[in-house]
């Protein structure tokens, strides 16, 4: 191993340590956001906070600020040294990062499904028991999770070395195939919602989060499976 290779390996090891710390920071931020949301919802319920535009905005803004602050702090504390952001370093580590991304693509739909189920049950309570702050927040929180999923799948707003993997030709090809198959998943979901809506409109609203989650999970699962097949065939 040359001196340049050894230097690269040291930088990669340092990057891995920083990224592990960053993942921990983001995980703790997620817990903090969840605790804040539950705390605010319980508090709002206890003091019978009226459901107005300002109260919804306030109850949404506080967890959002906690989340943004936590993520920003995690990135600030663990920011990578400039020499670690070169294409050379990123590509050396590409196999491992692509494997992690593929695993995330395979397992994230399950997380999305849990949030969707939670959102669907909250939507049921909103439809049958009226607009209560906690139920509205739980129901809408699905959208935040969906936004994260879209960022993960499309690489939107992804910078630094991760951008290389989203721009990689093979990975782009996998995603294109994933979107093409995903179209049918979303179409099937929307048609099912339409049929449910004809039978009973409330069912359509209740089923919508789960069907959206199933529909949009198809591209991610497709990418993960194509990646696995490429590893097998190669």
């Amino acid at each position, binding site marked *: 191993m040359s001196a340049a290779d050894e230097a690269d390996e040291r930088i990669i090891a340092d990057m891995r340590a920083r990224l592990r710390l960053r993942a921990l920071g983001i995980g703790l931020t997620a817990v903090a956001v969840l605790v804040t949301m539950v705390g605010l919802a319980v508090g709002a319920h206890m003091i019978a906070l009226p459901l107005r535009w300002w109260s919804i905005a306030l109850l949404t803004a506080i967890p959002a600020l906690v989340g943004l602050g936590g993520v920003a702090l995690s990135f600030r504390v663990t920011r990578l040294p400039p020499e670690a952001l070169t*294409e*050379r370093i990123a*590509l*050396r580590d*590409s*196999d491992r990062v*692509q494997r992690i991304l593929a695993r995330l693509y395979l397992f994230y739909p399950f997380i999305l499904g849990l949030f969707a189920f939670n959102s669907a049950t909250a939507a049921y309570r909103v439809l049958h028991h009226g607009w209560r702050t906690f139920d509205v927040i739980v129901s809408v929180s699905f959208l935040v999770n969906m936004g994260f999923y879209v960022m993960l799948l499309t690489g939107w707003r992804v910078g630094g070395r991760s951008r*290389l*993997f989203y721009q*990689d*030709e*093979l*990975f782009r*090809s996998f995603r294109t195939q994933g979107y093409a198959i995903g179209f049918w998943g979303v179409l099937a979901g929307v048609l099912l919602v339409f049929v449910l809506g004809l039978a009973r409109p409330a069912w359509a609203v209740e089923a919508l989060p789960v069907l959206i989650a199933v529909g949009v999970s198809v591209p991610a699962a497709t990418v993960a499976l194509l990646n696995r*097949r*490429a*590893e097998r*065939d*190669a």
Partner: protein
Amino acid sequence: MPDRRLVVHLKAARVAAGLTQAELALKVGVTRKTINTVENGVFIPSTVLALGLARALGVTVEALFSLAADWSREA
């Protein structure tokens, strides 16, 4: 699944140039897996990537890829 219409000579050209998959990937700016799947015919690269591979190895694109004799019948 490999595409039988294309015959790929990339591996031979890369080995002749004395490069590993990772080294060629670094030269072209793609991941090692992309090189690996191109070599095995699992992934057909774009024209831009094919030209980039040829330039990195100092050969023509035709030296890296050719059409199978019966390609039009399978197309």
